[in-house]
């Protein structure tokens, strides 16, 4: 494997890792709220959260590109805050990927929290546990499998994204050049051997993490049945 390809792979893993960590933190309160609220605003928020599932990545990327532009409010705010523009930067990739992979984190967590039901949380409250105490003492440990699913799906989905990152990140080696973009470039230049190598890495990785995830979930389901 060539040095540029290795650097693309490493950058991709870094991006996926950072995005997964951020998503676990952001998706937790959102999924908790969605699982428990009786608010009429719930379907609106649910639809917004699920939007990246159905929207063409180029559409999402296009809007993000506009928002990241220093001429826009958000772009100007970021420039004033950090001294750098968001377009064609790693930070821009992180923000775009967090939005793009949000449903893959929120939906498993929401299902996991909803499956716990009200009773367990109310019982913990009646035993004297406050909200934070209840979350770390009961809700979080009972949602372990949901967190595993959410983290694996977010990580794997971020690894494979192409359209959004191409729109907002471009193809700057070592900065925004991710593995999926490197593969595209290899194919365009008819370097099929290198494209094969990189594609195989992604394929094997994606299959392996999904296999591990399903094995763990099946085992847990069997334990619950016994």
């Amino acid at each position, binding site marked *: 494997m060539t040095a540029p390809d290795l650097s693309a792979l490493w950058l991709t893993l870094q991006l996926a890792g950072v995005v997964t960590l951020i998503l676990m933190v952001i998706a937790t309160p959102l999924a908790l709220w969605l699982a428990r609220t009786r608010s009429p605003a719930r379907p609106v928020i649910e639809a917004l959260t699920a939007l990246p599932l159905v929207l063409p990545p180029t559409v999402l990327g296009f809007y993000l590109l506009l928002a990241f532009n220093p001429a826009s409010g958000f772009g100007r705010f970021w420039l004033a805050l950090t001294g750098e523009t968001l377009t064609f930067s790693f930070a821009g990739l992180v923000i775009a990927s967090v939005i793009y992979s949000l449903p893959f984190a929120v939906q498993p967590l929401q299902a996991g929290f909803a499956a716990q039901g009200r009773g367990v949380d*109310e*019982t913990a*409250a*009646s*035993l004297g546990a406050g909200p934070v105490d209840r979350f770390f003492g009961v809700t979080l440990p009972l949602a372990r499998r949901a967190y595993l699913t959410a983290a694996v799906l977010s990580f794997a989905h971020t690894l494979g994204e192409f359209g959004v990152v191409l729109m907002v990140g471009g193809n700057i080696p070592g900065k925004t050049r991710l593995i999926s973009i490197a593969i595209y470039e290899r194919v365009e230049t008819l370097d099929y051997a290198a494209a094969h190598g990189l594609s195989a890495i992604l394929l094997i990785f994606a299959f392996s993490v999904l296999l591990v995830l399903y094995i763990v979930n099946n085992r847990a389901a069997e334990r619950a049945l016994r």
Partner: protein
Amino acid sequence: MTGLDLNIRLQRLNFTLEIDLDIALSGITALFGRSGAGKSSLLRVIGGFERAEGRLRYGGSLWQDRGHFVPPYRRGVATVFQSPTLFAHLDVAGNLAFAARRAGRTGDLAAMAGRFGLTALLKQPVHTLSGGEAQRVALARALLTDPKLILMDEPISALDQAARSEILQYIEALRDETKVPILYVSHSVAEVARLADRILLLEEGRVLGFGPTAAILSDNAAGPAFGGEEPGSLISARVAAMTADGLCALRFSGGTILTPDPLGAEGTEVRLLIRARDVMLATERPAGISALNVLPATVSAIEPVGPVSALVRLDCGGTALGARITQRSVKALGLTPGAPCHAILKTVALARD
């Protein structure tokens, strides 16, 4: 005795709970009524799981008022739900420790486990427990929080028959041993007759009555709250002796009752439930009759029930007893308030589920 003072209104889809109440709680107070009467909703308001409009005070603490709301975890109220809601990621000991740690009572854990027969189960994951065992863990866990009030929402209705009678014994022991008032939601007459000291009767989100168990059961015999099921009269009795031919003699204020059921050792307190339709009346003491129990009584009131029947209320040595007979029989026997008569008990049932 701790005062429960509330004036609340809870509006839900096609249901309104409107309760204005100032009562003293001790022992077990049953929240009784048909399903949909608002029993569980009221319990959830008291526990702090539903926020109703209005004011709620328990003992010296104001739990809810305009702009003031004490969350469930600061009320010192332990709730035992219909399903045991144990924490599946912890074993039995972990579930007990969860409550004990937060109340600063970890030292009492072993004793509490022993009291509920859980010592051998402490290291077991909760998904291996039977329904009865799980509910025992839930009871022990609730007590370990050192609560000021215990709420029980139909705690035995999801259990099988054997587990029910086991849990009922633990709840009875709890009632007799602790000073903590218990609010107990149920729609089973037998359960309430056996457990409750007082009944708060609910119907369509409103209070229909409150008072001692025996009085509420007999006063509302024909009322809608029992959904056509006639509650019967509650008699508190004590096992006096076993007869030579194997019958159990029970003494109460109105005399002695004999039953073929072995009800325990001499001195055991039991509650009997006598249904009004199982009581016949005679103006003279009948001879040549197979019924074992004929009790002298005085008619205290006669209330018509529908077009043909009547409920005859009797005073049996200070214990109230109801007899359901036809209005024709009332006339034929010439029954009037104050008249002496004899009550013939066809069957005697122990008040148990």
